[in-house]
Each structure stands twice: as C-alpha cells, then as structure tokens.
C-alpha cells in the first residue's frame, strides 16, 4: 500500500510545518553507467506498432543534460522468435520500431548490444482494466480546498493486478507517477487520484493507467520513492541502487540501470471544469 506511505509522508511534512531551504552540496559523480529505458507500451485503441527504447547514461546530480548512448543495436523478440528491430534516430539516444506486434500475456525478450556489452531481459505483456470515468471533486485533497481528480476502473477479480498511474498537467512541469496493487480492493471498482494540490480550472490533465508486472511494481515502488518528493521526510527509508530486470551477459558486475517493461495502457484527457 504505497499510497499510505505517501500520505503519511505528506501529513508528517504538513504537521512539521517545517521550513525548507535549497542547499548546494558538493556531490561526487560515480563513473557513468548505461541506463536502458525500454518501456514498451500498447495504448488501448492503437496498433502498438510504433515503439521506442531510450539509451542514456548516468551523470552528475547537478548536470542539466543527460548523455545519450549511440551506436547500439536494439531488438525485441517474442516467444515464437519473431524479431522486432529498433533502429537509432541519430543524436537522440532513441531507438524506434514501427512494426511491433503486441499480444497480451506474450513473453518478450530484449537484447541490447553497446560498446561490446550485451544486455538482455524478458517480460510478459500485462493487460490493464479500461478507464470507466473521471470524477472531479472541488473539495478534495488534505485541506479540502483543492481540486482532486479521481479516475475509475473495475479491478478484474480473481487475479493480482498491479498498476502504474501517470498524471501529467498542462500547467505543471513535473508529472506524477505512482504505483498501486489491488490487495485491498480485489475485484472492486477503484480509482487513481491526482496527487497535485495545484490543479486549477482549465488545466488539461492526461491520465494514463498501465498494467504492470509484480516485479516492475516492486522496481517502481523503490524508484519512485527515491525520485519523488515523498521521500526525504524523517520517515525516509534508506535509498539504494535500484536494480531493474536487465542483465549484462558479458560482465554481470557492470550492470545496467533501467527496466524492460511491457504494458497495456489506457489513457484519458480531462479538462478541469
């Protein structure tokens, strides 16, 4: 129940009425490590033929640009050994495929070769329950004065489901991600909720629900707690390196960051009334 953690962290910050101050720290920079962002996403109502994989590296915490990795070979194959090649868009670190064929519950294998190292991972395409409706509440949030958006769906019964929710706002730079599991609402109508307290009338909000695997859920739980503003309260758990599901088969110790995920998603655009 990640959401409870988030709420506790939020409440504690609220109650501490603490003061925050941006400080400049002298932080060391570790040698760069490859980051593979292979998030294959089949949006409902599309063919899913077009897919993109990004290769970058780690960089200094205060650096404003992220170094890209070019010259790699990237491909994904399905369980019947049908190969989908991803070709590089020069200068962007992006590798695209235009003939990908997504199939629910199909198992896919990623292979990336870069600088003499080969990286592989496998993942199963998870389905997602369709979004049924969006409900706006003008007396929401913790103070009761914020606009709160709830996006509903019907959780499929008799199976464990894991979700990644994304809210991006036309008026805000940062988007919100959070993950959830259906342990407490197995088979019921449930919702995701906007976590921003700055939503205002006229904003366009893009809500995306992704169906994800349990291991991707675990990965994102850690990753998002490290990246989000929810971390860092006195109740913070120790940050650590977040290992994904991609293995360096050439040299295991030189492991990559990132994840090979493959999800069905449903998306809705909502204009705040």
């Amino acid at each position, binding site marked *: *129940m990640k959401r*409870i953690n988030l*709420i*506790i962290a939020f*409440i504690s910050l609220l*109650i*501490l009425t*603490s003061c*925050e*101050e*941006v*400080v*400049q*720290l002298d*932080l060391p*920079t*570790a040698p760069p*490590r490859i980051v593979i*962002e292979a*998030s294959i996403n089949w949006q409902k109502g599309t063919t899913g033929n077009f897919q993109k994989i990004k290769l*970058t590296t*780690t*960089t200094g*915490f*205060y*650096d404003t640009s*992220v170094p890209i990795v070019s010259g790699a070979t990237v491909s994904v194959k399905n369980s019947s050994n049908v190969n989908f090649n991803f070709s590089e868009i020069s200068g962007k670190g992006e590798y695209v495929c235009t003939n990908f064929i997504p199939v629910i519950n199909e198992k896919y294998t990623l292979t990336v070769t870069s600088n003499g190292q080969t990286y592989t991972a496998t993942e199963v395409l998870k389905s997602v329950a369709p979004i049924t409706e969006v409900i706006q509440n003008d007396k*929401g949030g*913790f103070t*009761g004065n914020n606009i709160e958006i709830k996006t509903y769906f019907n959780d499929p019964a008799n199976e464990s489901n894991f979700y990644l929710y994304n809210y991006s706002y036309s008026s805000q*730079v*940062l*988007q919100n*991600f959070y993950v959830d599991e259906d*342990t407490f*609402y197995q088979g019921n109508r449930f919702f995701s*909720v906007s976590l921003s307290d700055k939503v205002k009338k006229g904003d366009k909000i893009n809500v995306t629900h992704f169906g994800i695997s349990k291991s991707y859920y*675990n*990965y994102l*739980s*850690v*990753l998002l707690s*490290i*990246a989000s503003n929810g971390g*860092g*309260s*006195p*109740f*913070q*758990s*120790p*940050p*650590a390196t977040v*290992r994904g599901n991609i*293995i360096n088969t050439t040299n*295991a110790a030189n*492991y990559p*960051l*990132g*994840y090979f995920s493959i999800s069905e998603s449903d998306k809705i655009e909502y204009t705040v009334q």
Partner: protein
Amino acid sequence: MSVKKIIYLFVCISFASTAISQEKSNIDSSKKKFTISGIVVDSRNNETLIGVTLYFPEIKSTTTTNEYGFYSITLPSGSYQVLASYIGFRTLSTQIELFNNKKLDINLNIDGQELKEVIITDKKYSNDIRSPEMSLNKLSISSIKKMPVVLGEVDVLKSLLLLPGVTNAGEGASGFNVRGGGADQNLILLDEATIFNSSHVFGFFSVFNPDAIKDLKLYKGGIPANYGGRVSSVLDIYQKDGSSKEFHANGGIGLISSRILVEGPIVKDKGAFLIGGRSSYAHLFLKLSEEQKNNAAYFYDLNMKLNYKFDPNNSVFLSGYFGRDVFSLNNSFTNIYGNATLNLRWNHLYSDKLFSNLSLIYSDYYYGLNLDFVGFQWDSGIKNYNIKYDFKNYISDSFKLNYGINGIYYEFNPGTIRPSNPTSGINFDQLDKKYAFEPSIYLSAEQNISDKLSVNYGLRYSMFYRLGASTVNYYADNNPVTFNTDLQLYEKGVPTSTQFFSKNKVIQTYKNLEPRLSLAYQLSSNQSIKGSYNRMSQYLQLISNTSSPTPLDVWLPSDNYIKPQIADQVAFGYFRNFKDEAYSLEVEAYYKNVNNRLDYIDGADLIANKAIEQIILNGQLRSYGLEFMLKKNEGRFNGWLSYTISKSEQRTPGRTATESGINNGNWYKSVYDKLHNLAVTTNYNLNKKWSFGGNFALQSGQPVTYPNGQYTYLGIAVPSYGLRNENRLPAYHHLDLSATLTPTSNEGRNWKGEWVFSIYNIYNRKNAASINFRQNENTGANEAVKTSIFGVVPAVSYNFKF
C-alpha cells in the same frame, strides 16, 4: 537446559548463599545480629523516596531504599548512628539501639533552600563509588523541570539526550538511541508497564506528564537481572504515589499544553490518590479560523494512582496511564494513536528481611488511521498481560538476593483493514493476529566481597513461545527470501506449503540464559573502577526501516523466521569524586554487539505486509564508544558536561558465498551513529527569585546517503546512489536558555506560582532534519533541499501549586 534444571540451579544458589552468610555470621558470632528495616518518606506528603542512602558510620555500612521506599539491613547488635540522606532533603541523623529487630520509618524534610533540589547526584555518604552500579543515570524530576526546552514543554525524554551515550535522530524525532542502539531496543517502563510509543505528535513531546513523575533511572549497561526483553537500555520511570497528608494541586499553563494534577489522602497517612491530566490546545485556535475549522491536531494524557497501606507489612497500589494523539483533516483523514496501562501491585513483607512485590500489569498500544477519501480504515496494535512476582532478600549487610518470576502474554494485531464508508471500494481484511508468551525467572545477588570489592551477579532465564492460532508459511530450504543471482537482488520467496496452528499451540520456542555481572573496586574513598557484562535478549521486533520510530510502526513477535535479538555488552569505567564530592567524574568505555538485527531487502514494503519474513534478513549491529561526564553537584552554579565519542555499525552479509548481502555485505554506519556528542547543561541560582538554565548540544550529523549521480527514466530525474550511509548531515547544534521567576510573594501563602521563560535554539541554527533530492517543480532542475524543524523558539509557561 530445561526449566526444571534452572529452577534447581537457582534453589542451589540460594541455599549456597544463605550458607555463606550463615557462615559469616558464625565467624563474628560474639555479637548477635539484628535487622533494622522500614520505609523512608517525604515528610510533607508521605511520598516514598527511592534510592535514599542510609549510612551507619560506626560500621561503615550503607543500604539504600528500593523502588517502594523500603530498606532493610542486618547488623551486629549495638548502638548506631543512622544518617539518611537524599537529594534535595536535609540529612537526618538519628541514634538507634539495635538489641532486637527494629522497625524504623524515616521522615525526611525538604532542604530549607528548595533551590538546592537541582543537585543531581547523591552527595555525602554517597555509595556511587562503592556500588557496582554503572552505566546508570538518574535524573530527578525537579532538575528536568529547570532545563530549557522547546516550546516550554518539559520533556522527560529530551532531557535524557543530555546524558553521555544518548542521542536521537534530531529535532522532532521520536524515541532515543542508547549507545548506538535502535529506539526499539529501549525498554520503557512507566510504573513497570511497558510503553510502546513514548512520543506525542510524531516525537515533538514525550508521553510523560512531568508533574506525575517521581523518579527515573536509565540503565545503559550493566543491566540488572530483574530487567529483560530489550537489548540496549532500560528506562524505568516511577509515578508519584500521591500525598496521604493533605490535598494538593499543581499544574501549569504553557503555549502548547496545560496540565493539572490533584492528589490527596483517601485515609490520612494510610492511603492516597493522585489524578493528573494534560492536554494540548493549539487546535482550539484552529477552530477560530474558517479555513481550519474542520482540522484538529491534539494530544492528551491521564495519569492515575491509588495507594493504600493496610498495615506495615501490606500495601497496594493501582496505577494507570491513558494517552492519545488525534489528528484529523477535513474529515478525510483521521489518525488516532496512543498507549494505555493499568497496574495493580501488592507490596508484602514476609519478614523484615524479605520484601516482595506482586504486579498484575496490562498495557496496550493502539494505532488507527482513517482515510475517508480512499474509504480506508486501518487499525493495529499490541496488547500485553504481565504477571510479575519479585523478591528482595536482605540477608546481611553485605549480601542481598533479588529473585523473581515474570510471565507476559502478548496479542499483536498487525492490521485490520475495513471499508470506512458504504461506497468504499476497500475489502475487509484482517492480517493474521499473533500471540506469544514470554516467561522468565531471575536470580541476582549484591555482595560486598571485601571492603574494596563489591559485585552484583545474576542470571536471567528467558523463554519465548510463539503461539497459535496462526498460519505458518513454509519455504523451499526454509528460506523465505531468495536471492536472484542474475540480477543480484533479494526477492520474496514463495511459500511451498502452509500449516495452521490452533489456538495456544506452540509454533516456535526460544530460550536464552542471560548472565549479568558488574563489579566495583574501590581504589580509595573517592575513586573506583568498575566493570560490567550483560547479555540481553529481545523477542519483540519493531518492523521499521526509518531512522526514528513512527506511530504506524508495527511490533511483531519472534517466530520461525524472525529470530530474537541477542546483545552482549561489556563496559569499563572510572569514577571519581573531587573536592569533598562537589565534583564528580565518570568515564566509561563500552562495546556492544547485537545479533539478529533485522535488515530489510531493498524496496521492502512494511505496511500491511502479510508475510514479513519474505522481506527481512538477519544482520548484526555493533557499537563502541567512550563516554565522559563531569558534574558539578553543588553550589549556586551547577550542572554537567558530557561528551561521547562512538561508532555504531551494521552489516548484513550474504547467507552464502553467491549472495551479495545488504550493502555488499560490508559494515556500514547505522543511522544511530554519532561520532561526537557533546552536551552541557547548567543551572545558576541567582537568588530566591531568579534562577537560570542553559543547555548546549553539539553532535555529528546523522549518517545519510547522498546521490553520486542521476539518470532519466520515464521522463523523471532519478538520483542514483552508491553505498549506504557514506555521508553525514551537517553538524547538529543548538543553545537554549531559560529563566525561572519565583515571585517572593509566594512566601507564606498557599498558592505558589512560578514563571518559566525559555528560548530554544537562541542563535537560530537551522539544523537539518533531512536533505532531500528532487526536481524543482517550476524548472525541473535537480536540487538538494534541507528541511529543518525548529528555528529560534521563545516560550513562556506558568506553573502553580496549592
């Protein structure tokens, strides 16, 4: 070793020791021996006094009163002078003719200059040098009340932080850490009942109402055999009994909370009651504002005690505590939590040499959370029922035996989940309740072996039975956590089978022998060296991976997979009094090792986890350090300086050669590691009207992990981290001052008032509670953000008694 064998062993030791003392009395059989015993009380209100020193100069023997004010000593017949001395009281001298067994109840009068109450150690005839007790700090409540504190709220726990070897996670953090141990490793007792969460408002204030407290002791090491169940320390707090002479009330009005306490006789000189309450009221101001009127944040607590003395040999005490914190925001979020305790005790004297106390104790901790906007209601808690029978056998002036039995039955509720409203999408769920029984027996002896050498030695035998009804998961190779060698990751195991154990069926058993030893060798009349060893075992684990406890943290019993923590600690010390005991110095070195310290796999989700064994690994915690404490005990200007240099480290190696362990299996700094810890506390009595207090604290920052890079994933900037706790927050320090005004108009009238003015953190140091790494919400650029809690905080409070 079976229980029978242990009991047999204890019986043998008892006989042997009786024989020893018998033999001794045969040696000087020229004189017959008689026992003098009694109770020492405060003459104003018959409140029993704990730790009063009775000194017999002719024979150079001392004894002290126990936690019920009782003393007993057996001496050769003769006439003796008795000097009874106690902090803040006038030393009483009386002459006794000891030609038969005698009862002598002593009334001590408060020192004429009440201001002298601030003196913290026993002076004159102090047996601190002689006694093998070490690593023990006693604080009188009157000295705690004089310390400057944040928002003027007198805080028993925060005052402990000024002692050597005691730290916490920073301002506003709950709990405290003793000698590099976790906050969950402290046994906190209020009138013998276990307090599971010692803080109000997430750690800002402690749950102990200072007006209701008589005395407190903090054992950091050399822990006597009558205590068990936690590995790092024991904080033993006694509530006042209540005045059996006259009705009194006292209280205080502060910025955050106000308190009132009433006490008086039920039957004069025989029985008394005490009832006290405290409540914060800041939320009342919230109600005044239209915007905040639906929000609430407050805490309250109630203390109660009744005592009745049937005859000189029988007294009963009933004491209780009830406290709650309540937060609610706009009816969409409600959070209530707190402790409750109830304790019935019976003091009985079997003879003037054999004191006994039987206690029946109940305590519980409740946590409730209601998130109405998600339709989620959560309850969790722990209840325990404790029966305890302790004996103190004053065999001779140089030999005393303590023994007793204890049984605790626990009921844990790790979580009940309910829909909070009819339209909620949440399903009802009850996480498996857990039950356990923890019986123990102990025997310990206090013995003066020679004029110079005295020793306390004892043995505690503790047992722990994890009981049904419960369902136990079994795993391949008995391993609930598996290691993925490809990804170098720990993962949750999958149960291969389960077994249901019916009610009260034993699921798992642990037994531990816990030897305790401390000794003192007196080098001269004013200096001694001491050494101690203790083994402690802890069967309850706090499931938490944060640096300080949160109210939501769940306690769980040891079971097939969660092993009890076992600690070994050795300490050595040098103790010296200077200048006719005006000054004293304590230097102690310690080394502590704790096995089976829980560590969590990365990304472990601890809340509402039904199979906690799948995310934990057994690690090790070790800490060592050197503590100094220099005290000025008397005079208008008094106080102490303490300094500790210490290390606290943790490691969780891989279970096999192929596993990485946590942090690559290397030792890393625990979050309790504070390399330097300096504290100064002083008090200056200018005149009868004004006194001043000052505190200064300086500590190394808490170990944290700073990122060593960043990367982009899903369009968000993710900090990347290296090894754990390699960095530290900036050094933590603050200076606090207080002034107490006692108006001279108090004299000769019943109503006595007192104003306390304080300024916390006078130079407005913004101590870092944490440093977070995040993206700026306007620019998206990475930034490091320091969160600090208190700047400079002035406060005033008014205390009264009548």
